Structure formats: structure tokens, C-alpha cells
């Protein structure tokens, strides 16, 4: 695999783009690996990359039942931010943000990270207070945050509804200038290519169907491409953690739920930032192709089916028009869904498990894309050292039993209401 550079671009341009190589090797499963990672999404691939890069562990396989980029890593709305309130989350997501800032050069792959800034609108004096609190916490952790009043918001995004008749008048906003978006497929491809370059085997079309045990220890996996031995097995399967966890005998505080995303027909550049609507669960940004990308609520009941539901479609369009009336005539081109692990406190799980040889990375709810690099970094640390990384001390699996929830959404144990 050659390195991408200006010169490689010029060379290919001069020779008709006929010399490009595969981005990653098509690997055939070996009988065993030091570490097997189940799930070739962003988190699994990042874990493999950092295992090799940070810990020198290269005898690693990533097993993906479908194809790289086909899961949530390629289905999300790509919002990256580190505007968290709770201790533990604040530091973890800011560490992730720093990794995003260096990702394209670290991976030698342009992930199109665009720090266009995110604002969350506030619609009451109380909400302004809450946002000020959050901004203070962020600043005291060295994270950029600004509180904007109504006029400052109007100057930045004049096309929102500032009229007398707005359903929920805008009081102000919290703004993080370093937040933004990245090209989600590129993140998967970039990690896959860089991991493969370090010797990691990336095996697509390989579903893990069960675990192989020696006594109480897990020593490998059964797959649709045969048995594969493993010194350690790391799970990073997004919405399917319960399905595999059950096979390993884990009882988990997780429900699988569907989240949809929507995109309109392309229009000229209009929305410079990521805008989240503080009066409802809704946000939008404009893609590089010009489509407005919308996100909203969960469908609201357990689901493993990666397709949408028109109820949420209607709610999302209502919120879109309440926030930005001038887009009411745009046509929606597409919508799609992804299955996510929802945890009772809306925080992830990166944890050792009661099962020897099995390590868990899951429960990302609907916010795990922004976590991709830090999640991979810390999970690799755990797989390599058997220790919990300091940044993920709050994400232990036993926190529900011990009462150490990290309830950022403030929703309580009702996964479908988050």
C-alpha cells in the first residue's frame, strides 16, 4: 500500500488513474490471532489500528459480518462535538476531539473533518442557565464554549425563525466552534487501510456465530468462515451487543433501538454550522453535496430492523420547519436507519467483563461516531494491558449495579425515552 500524497495524486493523474491499489488487503482468516475484534465498524477498526500503532500488537483480525462501512459508522449524521457536562464524559470526548483534529494526517487518509462549529439553540431563560452551567464546566476543562444571546445567534444563523410567531422563540445558544462533521465512510476506510498497513487482517463477510471456550475462558470464535482462535476477543458490534453477549453468557443493561437519518435534495450552500434545536430532539447540517442532513428521535421501541418509520419522519419535518421555515418546500430524498445499543444512562460501556478473555465495547447509544478514535484508543489499551484506561473509568459495565451511573441525558432507565 503506497502512501497518499500530492505526488501520488499527480502520478495517478498522469497515468489515467489506473495504478491505484486496494485500500486494504483482502485477508483470509488464519487459524488464530492474539486479538480478534468482532465488528468492523469505526470502533472495531480504530481499536485494531491503535493496538498495532500504540501497543505493537499486530497479530490481530477484525471480523465483519457485512462490509466495512455498512454499519452505523456509515449511517450516522456525522456530528462531532465535545460539549459534555458530566465528569468522565467531558474529558473522554475532548480527548476524542483532539484525535479527530489530527486524524487525517495520522491515518494518511482525508477524513474531511470540518470544524464548522455547532450551536444548540436555547428557548427559555432556564435553558440559557443550563447551557451556561455546561459552558462553564467545559471551559474549566479547557474545552472551547461560548454562550450567545439572541442577537448573536441571529447574526450567525439569520435564517432560523426569529419572527413574532415562532413556536418556541430563540433566547440564545451554546456554541462550540471546534465541533463539526467528518466524512463517515472515510473514517472507516482510513482506519481499515491504516490498520491493514500495520498487518491487521480485515475480514469482511465473516459473521461471528458463537464463542469457543476452554474451561471458563473464551479462546476463540465460531464464524461463517470457520473457527478462529483468539488470545482475547473484543466485541465492538454496535446494536448487536446483546445478541453476542447472550452467546457469551452476559446479561446486559442494553436495548436495541432504531435511529433514522434524513437528507433533502441538494441546495446551494446555506447552512454553515451544525445546528441543534434545543426545543426538540432535532438537528441539521449541510453535506458537502448540498443536501440538508436531519437527525431526530429514536423510533421508540425495541428494533433490530434497519429501516425507518414514518411517524418519526413527520416529527422530524415538523421540527425542521419550526426551526427553519424557509426549507418547507424542500423535498426529502432519502431516509435510512441504524440499530444502536441504548443503555439506561445513555453512556457507553468500555469494560472488562465477568467472562475471561472477553472485552466489551458497546452501548454507544446515538452518539458514538464522535467517540470513534478515543473509543478505539482506550479499548486497545484495555485489550493490550487488561487495565481500564483512565479516560474510561466511568464506562465500566458494573456501574449500574454499584450505582455509579453517568446519566448525561438525565433520562433514567427508559432507553426508549432517551
Amino acid at each position, binding site marked *: 500500500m503506497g502512501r497518499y500524497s500530492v505526488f501520488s495524486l499527480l502520478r495517478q493523474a498522469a497515468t489515467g488513474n489506473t495504478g491505484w491499489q486496494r485500500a486494504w488487503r483482502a485477508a483470509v482468516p488464519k487459524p488464530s490471532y492474539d486479538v480478534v475484534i468482532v465488528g468492523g465498524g469505526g470502533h472495531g477498526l480504530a481499536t485494531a489500528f491503535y493496538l498495532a500503532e500504540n501497543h505493537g500488537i499486530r497479530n490481530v483480525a477484525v471480523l465483519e459480518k457485512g462490509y466495512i462501512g455498512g454499519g452505523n459508522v456509515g449511517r450516522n449524521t456525522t456530528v462531532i462535538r465535545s460539549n459534555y457536562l458530566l465528569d468522565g464524559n467531558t474529558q473522554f470526548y475532548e480527548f476524542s476531539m483532539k484525535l479527530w483534529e489530527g486524524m487525517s494526517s495520522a491515518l494518511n487518509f482525508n477524513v474531511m473533518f470540518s470544524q464548522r462549529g455547532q450551536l444548540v439553540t436555547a428557548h427559555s431563560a432556564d435553558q440559557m442557565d443550563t447551557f451556561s452551567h455546561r459552558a462553564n464546566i467545559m471551559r474549566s476543562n479547557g474545552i472551547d464554549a461560548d454562550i450567545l444571546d439572541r442577537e448573536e445567534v441571529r447574526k450567525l444563523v439569520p435564517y432560523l425563525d426569529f419572527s413574532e410567531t415562532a413556536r418556541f422563540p430563540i433566547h440564545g445558544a451554546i456554541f462550540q466552534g471546534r465541533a463539526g462533521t467528518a466524512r463517515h465512510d472515510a473514517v472507516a476506510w482510513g482506519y481499515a487501510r491504516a490498520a491493514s498497513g500495520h498487518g491487521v487482517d480485515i475480514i469482511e463477510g465473516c459473521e461471528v456465530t458463537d464463542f469457543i471456550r476452554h474451561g471458563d475462558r473464551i479462546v476463540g470464535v465460531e464464524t461463517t468462515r470457520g473457527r478462529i482462535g483468539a488470545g482475547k476477543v473484543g466485541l465492538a458490534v454496535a446494536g*448487536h451487543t*446483546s*445478541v453476542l453477549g*447472550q452467546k457469551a453468557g452476559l*446479561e*446486559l*443493561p*442494553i*436495548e*436495541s433501538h432504531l435511529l433514522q437519518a434524513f437528507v433533502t435534495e441538494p441546495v446551494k450552500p446555506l447552512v454553515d454550522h451544525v445546528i441543534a434545536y434545543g426545543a426538540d430532539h432535532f438537528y441539521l447540517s449541510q453535506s458537502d453535496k448540498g443536501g440538508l442532513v436531519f437527525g431526530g428521535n429514536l423510533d*421508540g*421501541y*425495541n*428494533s*433490530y*430492523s434497519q429501516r425507518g*418509520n*414514518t*411517524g418519526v419522519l413527520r416529527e422530524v419535518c415538523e421540527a425542521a420547519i419550526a426551526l427553519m421555515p424557509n426549507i418547507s418546500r424542500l423535498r426529502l430524498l432519502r431516509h435510512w436507519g441504524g440499530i444502536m445499543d441504548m443503555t*439506561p444512562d445513555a453512556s457507553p460501556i468500555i469494560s472488562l467483563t465477568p467472562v475471561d478473555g472477553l472485552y466489551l465495547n458497546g452501548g454507544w447509544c446515538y452518539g458514538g461516531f464522535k467517540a470513534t478514535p478515543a473509543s478505539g484508543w482506550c479499548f486497545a489499551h484495555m485489550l493490550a494491558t487488561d487495565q481500564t484506561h483512565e479516560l474510561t473509568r466511568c464506562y465500566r459495565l458494573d456501574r*449500574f*449495579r454499584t450505582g455509579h451511573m453517568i446519566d448525561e441525558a438525565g433520562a433514567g*432507565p*427508559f*432507553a*426508549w425515552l432517551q
Partner: protein
Amino acid sequence: MLRIACPSCGVRDQGEFRYGGDATVERPSYDNADQEAWFRYVYVRPNPKGLHQEYWQHIFGCRQWLVVERDTVTHSISSVEFARKQRA
């Protein structure tokens, strides 16, 4: 959208109902001092990929709580009963 056959109102659109979570978890009795039982009741969910028994309330109809058995992959509904009948 799901269409749920309410035993008292007939087949209605999902928009008339509110979801209430997994119907298989059992609330421990009030005087149960076993932490583990409460932990399991509040947090542990089987989360099946397949048949799932779940509560729905017919909020824009008879307001009854129902237990619906639904496939979480295909969304096909195999049974709907009054929750009080099922729990009795």
C-alpha cells in the same frame, strides 16, 4: 408504522399508542431486600432479536395497557392482550 389490534377498540395506528418497555421483567415485591433482584428489574434486559413481549398503552383510545408480542426484526405482531389479563 405498526398497526396494533386493541382488544377493546380494534385495529389502530401506532400513533395512538405509547410504548412502555419490556413486559417480561417482574417487579420485586415492595419488601424484597435483595439488591440483585432490584438491579435486574431496573436494568437487565434480554433484548431479543426476534419475539419480544412489550407494553403499549392505548393513550388515544381506551387507555388500557396492553401486552403486545412483536418480532423485533420483521415488526410482525403475533398477539395483543390486556396487560391485566396477562399479569393476573
